[in-house]
């Protein structure tokens, strides 16, 4: 009897959270899926099309996925590029800076500088990056520097060249997000017991060996945390693309998040955009599960 009362009370405590989750997460997700099965314009589409939106996205939307011509292109392909280079870039640079700057005199200054772009909004950072990449030599810092170094250099419109634009965007993303990765990894690195490192050195391990065989395995947990966070970030990417290139030139820098936003809010094709959102959810969901499981394991471990 008492047991039952306690259980009831527990449910009562969870109830507000459950209601909120249902209203703001579960219902919208189901609704998005339902809408993805409809065609036509507006938020109250009436024409049921089944899975045709998905079919069109994956086979007949050259801006979303085009595999008939090598190399494959489209938002989906660009997003894979983001996933690899952005996640990899933030991780590698974050780790490098965390380890190399550790204990040096410049540590604070370097870390502040690297963290700075995290503090300003992504939109502001994107506007700054737009200036940086401008082909106009009187504005574009990057072209000005390259021209200074190599006098014969012709300025490149980094954001106007299909072959380069994605890399320029990803570099901007890395510039912004390395701060977070560095902070997390630096904290973890500092928490490594110095006695272990000392012992390794006494046993004659080179600094490289110490890092590779001792520090890195200890950092596995925070590294995978950062990696998954960055992968999720790359899959959700939209702000930089929207501000810096509007998906251009000629749609070559679109990513999934941009396509979703553009189809729904620019093209008013709510059903079609919802299908993009659902496709975006497919790789995101398992990652979230992994992340949540890890947090739970960490909490119960301690």
């Amino acid at each position: 009897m008492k047991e039952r009362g306690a259980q009831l009370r527990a449910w009562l405590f969870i109830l507000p959270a459950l209601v909120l989750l249902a209203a703001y997460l579960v219902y919208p997700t189901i609704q998005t899926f339902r809408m993805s099965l409809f065609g036509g314009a507006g938020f109250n589409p009436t024409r049921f099309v089944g899975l045709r939106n998905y079919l069109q996205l994956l086979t007949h939307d050259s801006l979303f996925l085009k595999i008939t011509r090598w190399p494959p292109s489209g938002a989906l392909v660009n997003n894979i590029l983001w996933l690899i280079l952005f996640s990899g870039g933030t991780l590698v640079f974050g780790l490098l800076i965390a380890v190399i700057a550790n204990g040096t005199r410049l540590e604070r200054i370097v870390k502040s500088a690297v963290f700075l772009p995290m503090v300003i909004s992504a939109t502001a950072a994107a506007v700054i990056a737009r200036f940086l990449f401008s082909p106009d030599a009187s504005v574009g810092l990057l072209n000005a520097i390259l021209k200074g170094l190599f006098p014969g250099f012709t300025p490149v419109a980094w954001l106007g060249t299909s072959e380069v634009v994605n890399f320029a965007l990803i570099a901007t993303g890395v510039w912004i997000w390395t701060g977070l990765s560095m902070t997390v990894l630096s904290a973890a690195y500092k928490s490594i017991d110095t006695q272990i490192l000392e012992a390794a050195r006494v046993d004659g391990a080179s600094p490289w060996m110490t890092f590779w065989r001792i520090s890195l395995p200890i950092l596995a947990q925070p590294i995978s945390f950062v990696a998954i966070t960055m992968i999720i970030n790359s899959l959700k990417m939209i702000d930089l693309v929207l501000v810096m290139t509007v998906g251009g030139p000629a749609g070559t820098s679109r990513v999934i998040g941009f396509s979703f936003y553009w189809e729904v809010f620019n093209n008013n094709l709510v059903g079609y955009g919802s299908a993009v959102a659902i496709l975006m959810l497919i790789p995101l969901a398992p990652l979230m599960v992994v992340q949540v499981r890890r947090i739970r394991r960490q909490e119960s471990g301690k």
Partner: protein
Amino acid sequence: MRRMLIVFLPLLVVGFLVTTGSQQAAAQSKTVSILATWGGDEEAGFRAVLDASGVAYSYEGNRDSTVVLKTRVAANNAPDIAFLPRPGEVAAYARQGSLVPLNQGQSDDILPTSLLNANYAKGFIDLGTVDGKFYALIAKANSKSTFWYKPASLRAIGAKIPDTWDDLLALEDKYIAAGKTPLSIGGQDGWTLTDWFENIYVRMVGADTYMKLHVTHEVKWTDPTVVAAIQKFIQVFTPQDKKLAGGVSGTLSTAFIDGFNLILRPNPAAELYYEGGFMSSFAKQNFPKLVPGKDYDFFDFPSIDPQYGKPVVGGGDLAVVFASSPEVTKLMRWLAGKQANTIWASAKKGAVVSPNKQVSLSVYSVLTAKEAKQLTQASIFVFDGSDMAPPAVGGDAEFTALQRIIKDPENFMDALNFLEEVAARSY
């Protein structure tokens, strides 16, 4: 009980008097209800016009006026007069029988033929005509057929303002021969490219086919007329590395304001820029020292087929009538006249460019006067076509297709096929 009667009886009497009184007043002069999108300064400018009309009115400004209007028409509760920003809706309401024709060639028309002809160019009368009857009066307008140049730069190479497409191409060559880059295009904003195309297309096919391509998609994007217009467009920017500021990639990463800045700044990257009349406000902001009309100015977008002359592509608001009454007639005649339009064009707040040709150009600043002159003389006036197409076409696929054509003009047919594929499923 009696006390209650004493209290209530006078109230009842007063109430009765008030209701009958207001009914009598209503019979004498009906209040005209008006719906438009304008608020703030724009509303203030419009109210100045209404206040001077002597007609009792109630004005409702709503950003979502098109949606509001749709529901109110469906509920049989339409305003007497509404201002629509899209000509497509005028036609739709007219064909479903919701609108009162303003002119059908009869003596008791709301707007008599003589009044219309005295105040508006043929382009605007055609614009408001649906199936032979005139339904919509243009209230204010703006032009997107303004080609920006620098008079001093033109003089320096001894050139004249180009009148035809061939003149424009010759001018470009002259600039190249003088070691200069002729053209700047803000191609990152795809709508600047659609504006280019619209001006070219309407000059080659006229208003009818133009509307059929954009509004109803009776004409396909792979149609020979479209192909011919695209080929004209290609002439103006190829070879890209010679004619375009920043070449292909520079053009495709330049936003529309930056594109104009490129020709205005010291050490300009190019000499000519095309976009609408509204560009002058950006020039004023970014280059306050330059003198409008002297340091920068515009000419009419050159003609291509002499048969169509120099049509004006632009935007504006159209007044339509849902319920007629003597007051509505009086107000509409007022709105179509010289006096009302002069008040509106010279309002301290929310002044507009009036398409009414009786308005003296002296009420405007120098460049606005030029834009007004261009508008009031328009032989053909069409609305921005990409705005009238479904957004997936006119606000997305057309951008991408034209950007591809800038980059790879030889394979323009691929881009048009892509555009047509999107259009085919969007109407």
